[in-house]
């Protein structure tokens, strides 16, 4: 009985698609997090703080209670993740506690209790930790995970862009130092000084310092143009990473679809898998329909 409850709670908190309650839990946590973050922002305005101090205090108390219950439930229910043969209750719990999400959940809540025991603590640190709560949302945001995945897949391209950025910063700064170090020693007196100018120029166009020599002028213009190119390269890599990821997901889904349709029968379990995969890959119904049509025409052509 307790074991069944534990398993259900785990599935609800993990957002399993066959638990209707999981959606509401997800929504509730999201709303509480958003209300909390708005409160932190509003609380920083002195007039609002003076007027609604009590209310914010109350809100903070109940939010901490809410998140504490959530955390305790998560830790408890994740004991059901692995059977004793697979490693026991604490394997799943440990996995959660030391995951990025588990740490965020902990550090977004626990400091409140520290504050109760040691009231003399710096409140600013506490407030920063409260803002951590917004990271709880990333658990529900698959787009963020997609982003990380896409960036990770193209890490080599990003690496080369970073390398290019590094080289162009150092080279342009050094050239500028050689060209204008004597003329404007307060800006280009040393290469580290000039690196600051070079980064400003690359990131925001024309730099904070006007070059006075012809050579400096040319270097500054080239550096600025390089900045435009760097922005283009970075954006281009991200765009390409997303496009590639989408096509990869589509082909993975197509493969699964082919397998399901192969025997001509679509069982309930298979339909469930496909539905799950579709939401996970965030493919639209139109996309899926197109793929099904494609496979069907292929089959018709074969037979």
């Amino acid at each position, binding site marked *: 009985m307790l074991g069944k409850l534990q398993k259900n709670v785990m599935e609800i908190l993990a957002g399993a698609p066959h638990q209707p309650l999981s959606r509401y839990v997800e929504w509730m946590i999201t709303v509480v997090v958003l209300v909390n973050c708005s409160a932190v922002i509003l609380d920083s305005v002195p007039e609002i703080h003076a007027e609604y101090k009590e209310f914010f205090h109350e809100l903070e108390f109940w939010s901490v209670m809410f998140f504490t219950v959530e955390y305790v439930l998560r830790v408890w229910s994740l004991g059901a993740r692995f059977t004793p043969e697979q490693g026991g209750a604490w394997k799943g719990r440990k996995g959660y506690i030391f995951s990025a999400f588990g740490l965020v959940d902990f550090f977004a809540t626990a400091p409140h209790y520290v504050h109760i025991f040691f009231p003399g603590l710096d409140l600013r640190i506490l407030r920063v930790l409260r803002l951590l709560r917004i990271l709880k949302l990333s658990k529900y945001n698959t787009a963020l995970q997609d982003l990380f995945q896409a960036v990770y897949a193209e890490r080599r391209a990003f690496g080369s862009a970073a390398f290019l950025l590094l080289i162009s910063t150092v080279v342009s700064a050094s050239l500028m130092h050689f060209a204008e170090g004597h003329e404007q020693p307060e800006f280009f007196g040393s290469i580290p000084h000039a690196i600051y100018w070079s980064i400003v120029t690359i990131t925001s166009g024309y730099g904070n310092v006007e070059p006075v020599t012809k050579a400096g002028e040319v270097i500054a*213009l080239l550096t600025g143009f390089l900045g435009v190119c760097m922005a283009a390269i970075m954006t281009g890599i991200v765009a390409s990473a997303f496009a590639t990821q989408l096509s990869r997901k589509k082909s993975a889904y197509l493969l699964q679809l082919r397998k399901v349709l192969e025997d001509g029968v679509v069982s309930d379990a298979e339909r469930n898998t496909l539905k799950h995969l579709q939401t996970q890959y965030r493919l639209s119904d139109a996309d899926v329909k197109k793929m099904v049509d494609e496979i069907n025409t292929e089959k018709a052509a074969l037979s």
Partner: protein
Amino acid sequence: MSQAPTGRLPRIKRRIYEILEGAVVDRASHACEIVIAGLVVANVVAIILESVHSIHEAYEAYFHIFDLFSVMVFSLEYVLRVWTYSEKHTGPGDSPWKGRKEYVFSMFGLVDFFSTVPFYLQLLFPGADLRVLRMFRLLRIFKLSRYNSAMEDMLEAIKAEKDSFSSAMFLLFISCLLFSSLIYIIEGHDQPEIFPSIPAAMHWFVLTIISGWGNVDPVTYLGTILVIVTQILAIALAAILTGVVATAYTAQVQRRESIYEMEVREVLADGVVTEEEQLKLKTLQAKYGMSNEQVDAIANQVKAEQSNG
């Protein structure tokens, strides 16, 4: 007796070539790569620190010794490269100087040469301008690009889309000529100190393109319109460049995946995967920087197709 050294020397030469070129990926060539790359990074850091006056004063002797040491290492590297690159082309009728010439006049060869040799020039002519010398030393940073295959990826991607890039550059060039001439004609009379000539107007144009504002406010209506159009052009140009880069990268990824897929198809065609074939696929995967998931997906697809057909 006289056979042994002549047999050993070519073998040593071959080995050094392999280590320096990284043709065979093994521990020695990897270590060599790390040592040279580390020395280059240390050199660049030294150049940067040396430019700070107080640090330069305090540690001048150390910097000097370090530079001397670096030059020794890089000279040795250069000499060894030139000597061993005769191994690059070993076909019948190939002179040993073919590979050497190729290296000496390649970009890397020139970088290696010009980042080291000026030091010796200074010994011969002590009166040379130190700034020029330091500029040449800075060239050493480009030695790093030899070890960064991602850099080659980027160049390859750009080369494949060179038509699009050159058309974007052409657009930039044409609009630079057109717009700077126009602004000179329109505003040259009203602001002669800012637009005294077309080259000066070109400076304004490039500034506007890279930073959105050319440090100048127009005073005529026509000039205002022209400035606004230039600013929009700057955004459009950034978008075009971004799009071209994105397409280039996507095309490259697709090209590589299809090359890999073809290789997998070939390997799986006879139904047997030998150890040699496995190694070949692994090398290709490493070369293209593909993740295991990608590779598995491709392999699964090929397998599914072959079981269907």
